[in-house]
């Protein structure tokens, strides 16, 4: 049995996350994202690799979307409505609620403002979302008879999950994007210790190790504060959900504390409405936020107002959250065009900017002019601040998670190739786990766990529940407990395997037991004239104890027992078990001994001791 992991997107790159994993015949698509930096057909994952005929319903058992970012959900309406996938789709409750907003926002930006052909329509989004089944954290979902999935908290954005999938005995986890530290409004990723054959992890920050984020939060606040204090306008391009709420919580709190009266604007009603969702989905935020919630909902921002287009040229300082992020198009880009030439102003770029966007150009180097998409150039004299805290885990977090889960294999996706290679080496060398970094379109195959199942008899289970220690000291004392060795696995053709206790084997086979034992009537020369049998037994057992290690001797009136070995004082004149009796006149006592073949060595050891006389 094997697990095949086909990477359709986000292989050695960031964008259009899409991984198709085949576990014991079940095929699961994790994420169905769109590449924000591409304008051509490369924007979508190459679905033809999944099914040439386009019969996706039979090719894929289910789709699971980890969170609502465009590079994880962006291609979903296209896949369901244009490619025609009709099977089940799973998302967490927040993702289901928020994805349509993100998709619609993006669609509008692309169509209305950039004038592109429609990739999918509003109706597509609505139809697509109807097929989505919402799931809760840790809820175990039986997709079909064999396939089981479960979501764990990932902390990256509201509703982000890691997904556990299990078919038969094989299990994997796909992390999506995750964050191993608590941030302003979300908790850290949380997962059970699972037995995994494969872990597919993001690796956005495969080599970065970040310290505390508080200094960077302070930097951001000071940069914004300095800008508005100087009468400038601060532009924070961000997507409607996630960063916007986190930064806004930060600013709202700071404004309150510093008693700043400069207005904070949200660019569209959309984000205000998004806050409504956040209020309802408060149980998906961090513990800290949840505790505060009893008295005041932290997503009720006090200083936030709606932005109007006319305010772009209004005098005076302000802070503006504008969509979309990365300055890739739309309103945020339009505002940027107007505000960038003034040195008083500030552009704070939160999070990661995909290559090809204006945001990316601003972050890499200090350009004085920037080309916009339609060929116009803009002078950039404003300050650029990169908000350097990110909801992605750092390299340490990835290592921690991998170590914690200890999967049999690791696949890295969603990262940049050079740093992924470094992380791969680290995982292979430090954790000794095979690690793969497939490119788009490549498949990684790993072996999967299977168990052989057998019905166990009660006698076996009972014997296993009581300890069965054995002591041996050849060189040093060794204690072993081989209670399972009493069990015997019996396989009969075309029948289910059975586990029975060794005493039951013959019964299962319909055979009669045949006991192979050894016997010998051993002469023991007694020096002293002791008539007392009990004394004799005692002397013997003391002697045996000295030579035979770990022997447990049971003495009784006229016999002694060690394991299956039993020696009894033999009073017969002529015992059949007696051999070669050199009828010396010395006082000889006979011990009639017998022991089973299992204690072959033990028996001879004892006999040898006896022969040495007393």
């Amino acid at each position, binding site marked *: 049995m094997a697990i095949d992991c086909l990477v359709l997107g986000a292989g050695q790159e960031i964008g259009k996350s899409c991984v198709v994993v085949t576990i014991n015949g079940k095929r699961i698509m994790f994420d169905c994202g769109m590449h924000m930096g591409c304008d051509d057909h490369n924007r979508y994952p190459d679905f033809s690799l999944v099914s040439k005929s386009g019969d996706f319903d039979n090719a894929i058992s289910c789709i699971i979307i980890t969170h609502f970012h465009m590079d994880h959900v962006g291609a979903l309406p296209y896949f369901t409505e244009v490619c025609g996938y009709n099977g089940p789709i799973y998302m967490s409750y927040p993702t289901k609620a928020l994805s349509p907003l993100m998709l619609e926002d993006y669609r509008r930006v692309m169509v209305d403002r950039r004038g592109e052909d429609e990739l999918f329509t509003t109706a597509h989004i609505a139809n697509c979302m109807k097929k989505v089944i919402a799931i809760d954290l840790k809820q175990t979902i039986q997709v079909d008879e064999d396939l089981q999935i479960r979501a764990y908290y990932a902390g990256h954005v509201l509703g982000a999950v890691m997904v556990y999938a299990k078919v038969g005995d094989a299990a994997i986890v796909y992390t999506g994007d995750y964050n191993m530290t608590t941030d302003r409004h979300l908790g850290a990723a949380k997962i059970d210790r699972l037995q995994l054959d494969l872990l597919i992890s993001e690796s956005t920050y495969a080599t970065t190790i970040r310290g505390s984020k508080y200094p960077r939060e302070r930097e951001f606040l000071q940069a914004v504060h300095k800008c508005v204090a100087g009468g400038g306008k601060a532009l924070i391009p961000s997507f409607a959900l996630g960063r916007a709420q986190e930064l806004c919580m930060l600013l709202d709190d700071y404004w309150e504390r510093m008693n700043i009266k400069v207005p904070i604007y949200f660019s569209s009603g959309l984000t205000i*409405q998004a806050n409504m969702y956040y209020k309802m989905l408060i149980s998906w935020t961090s513990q800290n936020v949840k505790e505060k919630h009893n008295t005041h909902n932290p997503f009720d921002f006090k200083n936030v107002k709606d932005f109007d287009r006319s305010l772009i040229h209004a005098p005076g300082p302000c802070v503006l959250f504008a969509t979309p992020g990365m300055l890739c198009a739309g309103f945020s880009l339009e505002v940027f065009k107007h505000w960038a030439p003034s040195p008083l102003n500030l552009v704070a770029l939160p999070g990661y900017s995909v290559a090809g966007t204006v945001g990316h150009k601003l972050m890499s180097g200090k350009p004085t002019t920037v080309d916009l998409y339609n060929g116009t150039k803009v002078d950039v004299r404003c300050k650029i601040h990169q908000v350097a805290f990110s909801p992605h885990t750092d390299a340490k977090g990835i290592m921690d998670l991998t170590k914690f889960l200890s999967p049999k294999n690791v696949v890295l996706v969603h990262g940049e190739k050079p740093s992924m290679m470094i992380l791969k080496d680290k995982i292979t060398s430090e954790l000794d786990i095979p690690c793969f970094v497939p490119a788009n379109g490549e498949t990684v195959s790993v072996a999967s*766990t299977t168990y*052989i199942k057998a019905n166990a008899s009660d006698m076996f289970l009972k014997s296993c529940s009581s300890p069965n220690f054995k002591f041996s000291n050849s060189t040093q004392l060794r204690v072993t407990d081989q209670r399972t060795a009493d069990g015997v696995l*019996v396989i009969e053709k075309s029948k289910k395997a059975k586990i029975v206790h060794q005493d039951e084997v013959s019964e299962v086979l319909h055979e009669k037991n045949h006991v192979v034992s050894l016997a010998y009537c051993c002469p023991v020369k007694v020096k002293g004239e002791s008539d007392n049998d009990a004394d004799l037994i005692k002397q013997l057992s003391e002697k045996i104890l000295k030579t035979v290690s770990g022997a447990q001797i049971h003495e009784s009136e006229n016999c002694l027992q060690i394991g299956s070995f039993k020696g009894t004082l033999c009073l017969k004149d002529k015992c059949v078990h007696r051999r070669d009796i050199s009828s010396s006149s010395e006082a000889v006592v006979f011990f009639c001994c017998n022991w089973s*073949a299992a204690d072959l060595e033990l028996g001879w050891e004892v006999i040898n001791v006896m022969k040495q006389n007393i």
Partner: protein
Amino acid sequence: MKLTCLSKGDGFHYPPCHMLNLCGFRILIDCPLDLSAIKIFSPVISCVASEASKYPSDESLDAQNPIQKKHKLERQLTFADLVCEEPWYKTVKPLHLWDASFIDIVLISNPMGLLGLPFLTQNPGFSAKIYMTEATAKIGQLMMEDLVSMHAEFRCFHGPDNSSFPGWIKNLDREQVPALLKKVVFGESGDDLGSWMRLYSLDDIESCMKKVQAVKFAEEVCYNGTLIIKALSSGLDIGACNWLINGPNGSLSYVSDSIFVSHHARNFDFHGLKGTDVLIYSDFSSLQSAEVTENGCISPDPDNNYISTTSSDNKDSLLNTEDSLEEMEKLEFICSCAAESADAGGSTLITITRIGIVLQLLELMSNSLESSSLKVPIFVISSVAEELLAYTNTIPEWLCEQQQEKLISGEPSFGHLKFIKDKKIHLFPAIHSPNLITSWQEPCIIFAPHWSLRLGPSVQLLQRWRGDPKSLLVLEDGISSGLGLLPFRPIAMKILQCSFLSGIRLQKLPTLLSVLQPKIVLVPDAVNQRINFAAMKTISILNYFENKTLRVPRIADNPSVEITTDLASKLSWRKLRQRENFGIARLKGGLLMEDGKHRLVSGLEQEESSGKARPLRHWGSVAPESLLDALLKIGIKGSLEQSIGETGSDDNSIIHIANPSSGLIEVSEMGTAIITDDENVASQVFQAIDGILDGI
């Protein structure tokens, strides 16, 4: 498996309580409080009028007709009979007979089943793992806190009393105390005394809740590696659940009061309970509803006493919305009654505290008031109202599909949020809240606990309006009879007594069982009497009784053991000479209990002493001739001597060996004995025998 039904409970507010013994673990299911028992206590009423109205009647009785004194025992209960002390609370009696420290697991199915838990966790020896859904934990905690805060009023009134034995019980043991009262206090059999407890404190609640592990619906939690426990929605109320327990010896489902189609909570998730080995049916609601048909305006349809199994086992009949529509009609009826009395200038007091009902009523009521011209404020008076109502709008995952749709479209789950903002609904923590006085307006509609009419703001409000025939009192089922309204009589208010669906209708049970297909069903004796299970041949039905232990035999196959492939490949297989289609191997490794399964994994590999694994068990028979041949091959000569058995037994052969050293071999049907003093010869002979026999 053993099941002991500790209490069959009494309706929605007093769910049943069971003790289950499964795989050697002791599992307590639910720990409720019998809150209806506090009816024997007198509420804190500041009004003298009520008492005055009682005494004249008493006195006149004495004075006028001495003969009637005899009948005093059977006289009408009066207000004065109620116990005027700080109330104690009645818990599940047989639970005290169990040692709390021996309980391994506590499963709480709904918030009502949580109310008695602090009494149990107070016990210093208590160490069980407690599971309940997150919503149950939150709502249950709020309910307990509310109970404590309402109880505080009694504390203020009666002063602190720290005696460990309640003095009031002594007074109740007298002859002239009405039988009804005695029955509540001492129980049917007269030994309920030990079940009365002084109420816990906020600290007790807190420390109790700290021990709770809250779960989501369908989350699998593993207890001790052995039992996998899963909560599945029961539809009764927000967060209420049934339980599915999987263990190595089979699966078990516990079905408590369940509602197939709910208008607020998630529907009864019965698909998840399919095909278990044992199903414990613990829905007693059908027994209650059939009895009560009082003066109440709304009464349930009388159940047919004998319901035969319907052959149509389609699930649609389970999910038909008839019941839920009926429930909606009841709610609408309450709304219209309230509107009517408001129209006439009367106020409405709603003492229903079932959270789902309250939420729906609030929404319906506000909507209907808005659409009408009535300007009537709605007050919700409870110490936890604000938190509870805020909470219900942040838990879309726990609600029914219609409410989840609202999440998708960005609306709050329940409409009360908007009305609170618009100042149509006012929330107050207590009746003496200063803001209440300023915004007070009559007529009004008030939601106030407690349904027992002994605690909370409902007492004062009832006292205020009881003489007003225009006002309306909305009660839960069964309160108006007996002691319930006693302190408030004579009462001129209109009374609307409502019974809501709180479980599976008996007619649906056969269909449900035929869908679920459990192998064994445990049903309460009383349910079995009313249903003809004869048509269900494939399912075996066992009856259980309150306070009796029912032992259920194991029906599952032998437990399965999973062997890892790498270990299996290391096993040394033996082919059998006699039987070719068998393969046997001795096991290695260690046996673990993981995720409810026995698992054999490669453990610390025991260095088997130089690897000479010798068969320890043999079977088959040894023919003396073939043994002689085999011995000859390894250079041992022997001669055969036929049975000279002293006992005259048959087929005893003896082989004498002379070379290389002397010895003999006794061969019989049962076994073979090697008799020699030469170690080498012995092991050689053993090898030869081993070559003839099959062994392991």
